[in-house]
């Protein structure tokens, strides 16, 4: 547990000093909002609001992949990844610490991206802000648990930037289906049924447990 807190603190401190990942993720999601506006018929307005949940999650996924890829790439400098792997602690806690750090950074990016979306699509998200934050938090936990696990694998491959999306995206499918359905229900009706939330909770728990148990095989010297 101490290892989890240590890794979490290290990652957040590194990010708060460099802002590397958050800025890159924000820029990408901001650019995607602009691209969505130009790619939609008639631009992003109240008329094209039906596309908003899907597009919002597309922006989240790509921003997440960008940040997740960096989360282990920074550990390659000075062979820090070897230090992480050789630390006399359970590697599961190290991976979990990284997962939570990624989740926090992604949450920051998502909050700002949602504001940009609300502006561009002329939507008032304040009445559903709390529920939306809950849905996004659950969805992002799934993205980060799978993404951090496969980032540890992808960083050891020759084409790490290419491999991470290829490895993670198929496993993102259940999370994305449930998250976009829940977000769509929130935007349409202002409330969300328990089924997609339940599905997200089960998926998140499965991903977290599996990545914890399999961490020894992906974090190596």
């Amino acid at each position, binding site marked *: 547990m101490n290892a989890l807190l240590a890794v979490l603190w290290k990652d957040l401190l590194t990010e708060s000093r460099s802002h590397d990942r958050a800025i890159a993720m924000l820029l990408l999601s901001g650019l995607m909002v602009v691209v969505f506006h130009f790619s939609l018929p008639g631009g992003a307005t109240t008329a094209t609001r039906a596309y908003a949940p899907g597009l919002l999650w597309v922006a989240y996924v790509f921003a997440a992949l960008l940040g997740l890829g960096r989360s282990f790439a920074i550990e390659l400098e000075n062979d820090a990844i070897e230090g992480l792997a050789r630390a006399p602690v359970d590697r599961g806690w190290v991976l979990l610490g990284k997962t939570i750090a990624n989740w926090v950074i992604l949450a920051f990016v998502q909050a700002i991206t949602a504001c940009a979306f609300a502006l561009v699509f002329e939507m008032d998200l304040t009445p559903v802000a709390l529920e939306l934050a809950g849905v996004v938090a659950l969805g992002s936990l799934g993205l980060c648990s799978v993404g951090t696990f496969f980032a540890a*694998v992808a960083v050891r491959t020759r084409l790490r930037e290419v*491999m991470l999306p290829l490895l993670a995206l198929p496993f993102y499918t259940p999370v994305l289906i449930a998250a976009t359905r829940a977000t769509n229900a929130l935007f349409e009706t202002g409330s969300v049924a328990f089924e997609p939330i339940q599905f997200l909770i089960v998926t998140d728990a499965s991903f977290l447990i599996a990545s914890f148990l399999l961490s020894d095989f992906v974090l*190596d010297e």
Partner: protein
Amino acid sequence: MPDHRQTSIPATTSRALRASGAALAASTALWAYLVYFAPLDRIQGVIQKILYVHVPCWFAAYAGFALTAACGALYLWKNDERFDRVAIAGAEVGVLFCTLGLVTGPIWAKGTWGHWWAWDPRLTVTLVLWFIYLAYLLLRSFTEGSTRTARFASVYGIAGLAAVPLNYFAIEIFGGAAMHPDNLERESLGAGMGWPFAIGALTGLLALLHLVVLRVDLENRRVAANPSAAEWDGETGF
């Protein structure tokens, strides 16, 4: 690091190849005969006979992916490279049958329902399954270091297997089948369709077995021809 590779070609491989080849040839001949004389479906006509190709492809794909996951788990447990060779074979042959299933399915769907594709739960999960094992093959190509490649691939192969039961029970779990019926139950096929279906499934599994043995033999020969490359471990040179 101990050398856990087996560099000689096991003599049993050629015997297994001959045996699986003979069984496949016999089964294919019987299957072709039964399919030819199987009754035509009253509504769909001759295109329904693609059932005897389409479903066996999926049985073979599922079995291939299950083989990959099982051998991946055994590799992680025993650290024996021979299991990894079977895991590679299972994934490659599984992807081949998965692709054939994804080709034959839309042909049947277009002829019967007029649509190539519909996003029903089983089709969606099937596509995800295909992408997972394509990513598995890419992971093997792009990872450096023989033991690391085997280890990562084993983990990914095991994780990917979760999509197989999800795929098979997709209709029951998610409901809303657009193109697929519920899973087959006893006597749910028309009269005279049971045997060609059963022999088709057997032929699919025998084809998988034969191709897996062939692929393992190829991998054995590759390792035997270049043992120094097999012994190289990229982990230290990362």
